[in-house]
């Protein structure tokens, strides 16, 4: 009971912390908007007399003191209103959410590849550290770390699209609309378009995860309980998978979750190479065309993803692992 209360207290504390971080991000977004974005110029252009400008400024509430404007901005943000895109003339959040499925499916595809390859490769490297195959895997992963993600993409396109002509190089292909979600996972064309971008994105995460899995497994294999399980006569495979791997997965999930910022940056690079119509591609378009409301909304949205992931990772780690002491906080 006491543990449960402490857990609730911990979760509440984390939630409050998350809300404070979101507030800080919104403040930064507001400051950027006020400093950079002049909605009047975007609406009316340059050649409008000052009297008309003043009138419109008053109408839009832009002559109000900044605390009032900030209150309005925060009030709007809570209701999901973060401004109107100057390129698309639609609410910025709507524009970004429409691109979210593309980015999400790309990350999903890459994560599946990473999961399917890094677990066996990492476990193999941990249980047979001296084997020829393990050395090869580690050598390749060192090379993988040295190749920038956009070059991997370019090379894959050169080989599989330009030379061999097997796979499409650009865009999402045919998509199907499921309510608000536009998916490319249900058509053969959409899946074919996903292969190269997902491989590219996974290539940069794979070396990192193989090393993580290997390190975590090596740690766990050295523990007493593994020796006990072996002594009991459990088969090696059973010891590796159901004993060591289960305990190794937890820190893995935590570290993986904390890399969300890096993941978003790499997704942005991959989307640029493959002209994948996701959020990162949209963000760069907004930057090139100086769409300040869209840029700030992207910042808020990415900030939200970041905060939600980190908070969830913290809370889930606590739920799954009784060894993380609540009073152990520094």
């Amino acid at each position, binding site marked *: 009971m006491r543990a449960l209360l402490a857990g609730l207290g911990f979760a509440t504390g984390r939630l409050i912390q998350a809300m404070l971080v979101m507030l800080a991000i919104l403040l930064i977004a507001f400051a950027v908007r006020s400093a950079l974005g002049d909605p009047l110029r975007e609406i009316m252009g340059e050649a409008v007399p000052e009297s008309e400008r003043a009138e419109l400024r008053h109408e839009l509430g832009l002559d109000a003191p900044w605390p009032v404007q900030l209150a309005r901005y925060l009030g709007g943000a809570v209701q999901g209103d973060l401004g109107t895109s100057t390129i698309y003339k639609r609410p910025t959040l709507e524009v970004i959410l429409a691109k979210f499925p593309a980015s999400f499916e790309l990350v999903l595809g890459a994560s599946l590849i990473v999961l399917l390859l890094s677990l066996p490769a990492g476990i193999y490297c941990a249980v047979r550290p001296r084997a020829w195959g393990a050395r090869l895997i580690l050598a390749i992963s*060192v090379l993988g770390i040295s190749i920038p993600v*956009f070059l991997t993409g370019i090379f894959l396109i050169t080989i599989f699209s*330009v030379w061999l002509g097997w796979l499409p190089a650009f865009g999402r292909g045919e998509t199907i609309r499921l309510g608000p979600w536009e998916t490319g996972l249900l058509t053969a064309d959409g899946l074919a378009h996903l292969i190269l971008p997902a491989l590219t994105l996974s290539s940069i995460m794979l070396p990192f995860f193989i090393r993580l899995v290997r390190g975590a497994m090596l740690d766990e294999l050295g523990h007493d309980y593994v020796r006990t399980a072996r002594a009991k006569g459990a088969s090696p495979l059973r010891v590796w998978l159901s004993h060591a791997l289960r305990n190794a997965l937890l820190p893995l999930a935590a570290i993986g979750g*904390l*890399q969300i910022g890096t993941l978003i940056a790499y997704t942005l690079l991959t989307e640029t190479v493959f002209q994948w119509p996701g959020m990162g591609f949209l963000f760069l378009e907004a930057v090139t065309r100086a769409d300040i409301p869209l840029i700030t909304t992207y910042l808020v949205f990415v900030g939200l993803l970041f905060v939600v992931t980190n908070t969830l990772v913290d809370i889930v780690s606590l739920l799954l692992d009784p060894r993380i002491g609540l009073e152990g906080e520094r």
Partner: protein
Amino acid sequence: MRAGALRRNASPLRHLAARHPGGVVAASVLGAIALAVILAPLIAPQNPFDLKSFDVLDAGIPPSWLAGSDERFLLGTDAQGRDLWSAILYGTRISLTVGLFAVVIQAAIGVPLGLLAGYAGGRMDAFVTRAADIQLSLSTLMMAIIALALFRAALGGESLGRFAVPLLVVVIGVAEWPHFARTARAATQVEAAKDYVRAARALGVTTFGLMWRHILPNIASPLIVIAATQVAGAIMAEAALSFLGLGMPVTKPSLGTLIRSGYDLMFAGAWWITILPGLVLIGLLVSVNGLGDVLRDALDPRRRAD
């Protein structure tokens, strides 16, 4: 006397070379690149940053071993008619400059903070450690993308182009200090407990003098090891930012900019503008990382044991 000293210095090097044939290759490649980059104004047939020295009519000429090449251009020309060999030389120069200076900034911020945290401990230590954790969780590349994107949105692409080198150095430099701080902190904690530090303190050496003159030289090895990895990271970050159009402008291309500007033409058949600078970039990164591995092996006593 001098010869003897030299031989003594040379033998551990030779020992290292024998154990790491890959390291020798990495060091040679890196040495060759460094030499070419330093001598770029002498080797390069033209100055790729001088818009008057090339002609857009020469754009997209293939390298000398392909049909349709021009003997003036060894590796062909880029989308603006620049000699690609010259552009790669000067571009690598920018990549290396940004990489090295960014790491200098990282070390300038990270090492003093790490020394202080490791030596003072207590609240100072908790503060630096927490700040480093937060900074690392924010992801360097994402922070750099956002900072440069805001700069570009505020002042336009031209201003970004003019200040690109200092901006890239600062953005990549500031975001990556925690690696140096963590390494310096851990090493300082070990050193601070040793007798020579206590002796120096007993002799009345000031705290500053103690950290600067006694501890810092003794924690240099791990810092040098981490510096190599960091240089590779900074070069990669610069290339990524320039590839996104948030770094070096087309008028002053780095390797990342060349890759970006050639990418539009790749499907028209002009693959060399993208692929050749890409291969140079990979060669640079692999050799810096390889050198880092050798340094780790040579300088890290824990690794030397096994």
